[in-house]
């Protein structure tokens, strides 16, 4: 089955991100396809490249990056939700005159239209939210 995940909870604030990552691994372990994880609402903070959790806690951002590296799962971040929360890649940072950037590949900034297409094209879109 072709799955996609919509994640709307902030990392480390509530369970949503941990559960989404565990579900993603379970889906792949069962031999299903996971095409995309879409980050919206507070879920966009999962794309923060500067996240530095204590060493005895799971590193969620690295978890998503590993999922992309090992299984080719696309990591799409809603650009409107990201920008207003201070999350932007190098291109957006320069466009907005910012001295640093907070999102980098494999996370990609994209529009909400992608979420709608994703939801309509995969077999199951599973939402994790606070």
């Amino acid at each position, binding site marked *: 089955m072709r799955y996609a995940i919509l994640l709307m909870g902030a990392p480390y604030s509530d369970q949503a991100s941990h559960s989404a990552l565990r579900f993603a691994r379970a889906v792949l372990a069962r031999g299903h396809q996971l095409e995309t994880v879409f980050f*919206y*609402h507070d879920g966009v903070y999962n794309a923060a490249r500067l996240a530095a959790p204590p060493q005895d806690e799971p590193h969620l951002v690295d978890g998503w990056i590993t999922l992309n590296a090992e299984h080719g799962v696309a990591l799409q971040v809603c650009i409107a939700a990201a920008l207003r929360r201070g999350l932007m890649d190098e291109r957006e940072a320069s466009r907005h005159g910012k001295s640093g950037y907070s999102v980098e590949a494999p996370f990609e900034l994209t529009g909400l*239209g992608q979420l*709608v297409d994703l*939801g*309509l094209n995969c077999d199951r879109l599973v*939402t994790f*939210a606070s």
Partner: protein
Amino acid sequence: MRDEQTPDGDLLVILRHGPHGTSWLREGLDAALVGAAFGREVALLFMGEGVLALLEGQGPGALGQKGTGPTLEMLEMYDIEALYVEGRAMERYGLEQQDLLLETRCLDAAAIAELVDRNALVLTF
């Protein structure tokens, strides 16, 4: 399974948060507008606290958050005309259709289940 294989609508957005306090309502409406802008058939269902979004006379921009009233008034421009409210929530908040700023259809639990079934994609905010 229903006999009809093809759902009536592409996208049902369920809104369960009021207009102030969080950005859930605004970001949910954004998803609906984008869906409609991309030519999808979009319906909105206001459930629970979400029915408060439709109350008349809300001050836009109060409390620092951008108000959602003007966005709701734009729905028609985006051809989003299928608007539903949860009957139980209307009852709980003591609301009637005349209190709302847009024309809606009031649904009971069975009708809501059918609405969910008839849409290809459901996003809940």
